């Protein structure tokens, strides 16, 4: 190839990496259309959107930066409690509460990112788990603030943008969550295609090589973790604001384990896994729970065991079966 041809090919390839894929546009159209289509299932759709945002935030930590975290619920829960308390004590405006929750979660993420910079997988697992447990205990003990085991009840939100009231049917709620989800995914998409985003994948691929081209690994890990924490906090805030209360459940180990599974079902490392996983997980959950309401965790456990034994790459991304990876 001549120098000119190469340059053109380079430009074309670099641009191609950031192009909107057809299925992304379909997904976007479906998402927007869904607000009109959900009808009486708006509350369910709302929960799926929140779970999807939570899972996408974990993807940034797990799929891009390569950190196995068993305590991502810490940021989710902090966001939820912050939003609930903000509505009760400062102002019931949802967007301001959302911003506060994001800020709080980002601060926690930034502070705790120091802990995940070194160590083996087990040490990082323990530390992330530990942070979530510490927060759980804190929320439990500070019951004058958080309502303890009973949770924070009666969180009444003001109208969204001053005009849209949160109604019982959940349409405003779903619209709100959907918009936040879409905005966050767009931002995340921009980030993962940027030099910063690619450097995350690089340092996960070969940390030594990343250092050897001049990339600061600790800074990147901390930045990614903080960003992911902020998004998780947003998801938690959405839950508190749209359901009207926050309880210890938002910090529970089950939350961290479930979101991990959601992401694994949907696939890690391509940003949309959280969305597909959330849909699949919720549908699975409702199906199985309708059949055996008390022992859903048994079937969930069986599903996990089988899935891990046969290999999780076999499950996801059907279109990957046709293209050679």
């Amino acid at each position: 190839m001549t120098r000119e041809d190469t340059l053109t090919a380079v430009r074309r390839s670099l641009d191609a990496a950031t192009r909107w894929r057809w299925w992304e546009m379909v997904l976007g159209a479906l998402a927007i259309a869904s607000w009109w289509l959900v009808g009486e299932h708006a509350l369910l759709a709302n929960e799926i959107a929140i779970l999807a945002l939570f899972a996408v935030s974990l993807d940034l930590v797990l799929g891009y930066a390569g950190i196995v975290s068993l305590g991502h619920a810490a940021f989710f829960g902090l966001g939820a409690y912050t939003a609930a308390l903000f509505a009760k004590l400062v102002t019931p405006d949802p967007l301001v509460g959302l911003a506060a929750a994001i800020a709080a979660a980002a601060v926690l993420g930034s502070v705790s990112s120091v802990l995940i910079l070194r160590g083996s997988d087990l040490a990082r697992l323990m530390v992330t788990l530990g942070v979530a447990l510490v927060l759980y205990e804190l929320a439990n003990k500070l019951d004058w603030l958080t309502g303890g085991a009973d949770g924070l009840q009666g969180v009444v939100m003001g109208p969204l943008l001053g005009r849209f009231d949160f109604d019982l049917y959940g349409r405003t709620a779903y619209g709100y969550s959907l918009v936040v989800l879409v905005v966050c995914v767009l931002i995340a998409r921009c980030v993962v295609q940027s030099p910063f985003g690619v450097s995350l994948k690089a340092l996960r691929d070969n940390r030594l090589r990343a250092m050897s081209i001049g990339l600061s690994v600790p800074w990147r890990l901390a930045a990614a973790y903080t960003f992911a924490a902020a998004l998780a906090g947003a998801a938690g805030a959405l839950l508190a604001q749209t359901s009207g209360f926050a309880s210890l459940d938002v910090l529970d180990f089950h939350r961290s384990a479930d979101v991990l599974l959601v992401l694994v079902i949907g696939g890690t490392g391509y940003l949309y896994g959280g969305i597909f996983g959330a849909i699949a997980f919720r549908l699975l959950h409702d199906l199985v729970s309708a059949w055996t309401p008390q022992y859903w965790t048994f079937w969930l456990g069986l599903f996990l065991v089988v899935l891990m034994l046969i290999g999780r790459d076999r499950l996801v991304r059907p279109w990957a079966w046709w293209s050679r990876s």
Partner: protein
Amino acid sequence: MLTLLFDGIAYGMLLFVLAVGLAVTLGLMNFINLAHGAFAMAGGYVTVLLMSRFGVPFLATLPAAFVLTALAGALLERTLYRPMYTKPHLDQVLFSIGLVFMASAAVDYLVGSQQQIVQLPAYLEGRFDLQVVGIGKYRLFIIVLCALLTVALQAVLSRTRFGSRLRASVDDPRVASGLGINVNRVFLLTFTVGSGLAGLGGALGAEVLGLDPSFPLKFMIYFLIVVSVGGTTTITGPLLAALLLGVADVFGKYYVPKLGAFIVYVLMIVILSWRPQGLFGRAATR
């Protein structure tokens, strides 16, 4: 205060016996097995059921708890765990969480979710009240039994052929198999004994720690703390970590009940961020 110390040591020894299997399998197979607590739970239920349904005396249930959970461990290792050794840690974590969910739900279904009460034999109830310290008979029994087990484990590890094979395999599985050591057999035996010990610990601990279907998840964090803080290259590391954890937990819950387990978690986070390989472990070679 000495009574608290005594109780803390008993708690720590119990945690050690419960967690030692996990420490060895993690060091040996680099496998993060969050389901270890399920074996402990199984041992506890074996004891409870043998005593309440079949009237077996308490002391006799202990070997049964060990053997039955060991057999379960052997079966699971051979069938389910072995294919997972080469998978990434995330898969292992999710796999073992799945096993825990299954075990907890199954126990809930079969036996019910209420706390199980262990009726201790009369000669183990009560305490010796000395001037400065109250020594609970059962806790004394636990300390003695666990100490004997620890000594036996250390002896096996350092004096027997199996022990040196195990240490070689932990150090470097590839070189070990190159030397003719059947590493798979070492894994199987180690996992079996480790699970059995967990079962025994669960049986012993049912009276002290409580027993219900949520046991594995509740105590998983404690076992993991023992292993991650104690390191996986020695037996004394987890032992010291377990004792530290036991004493810290008992003292913490007594003096600062408001903070409870909070102290333990913060302590763990501090220790692991300062020394990710644990207080007593070597830096990871893998």
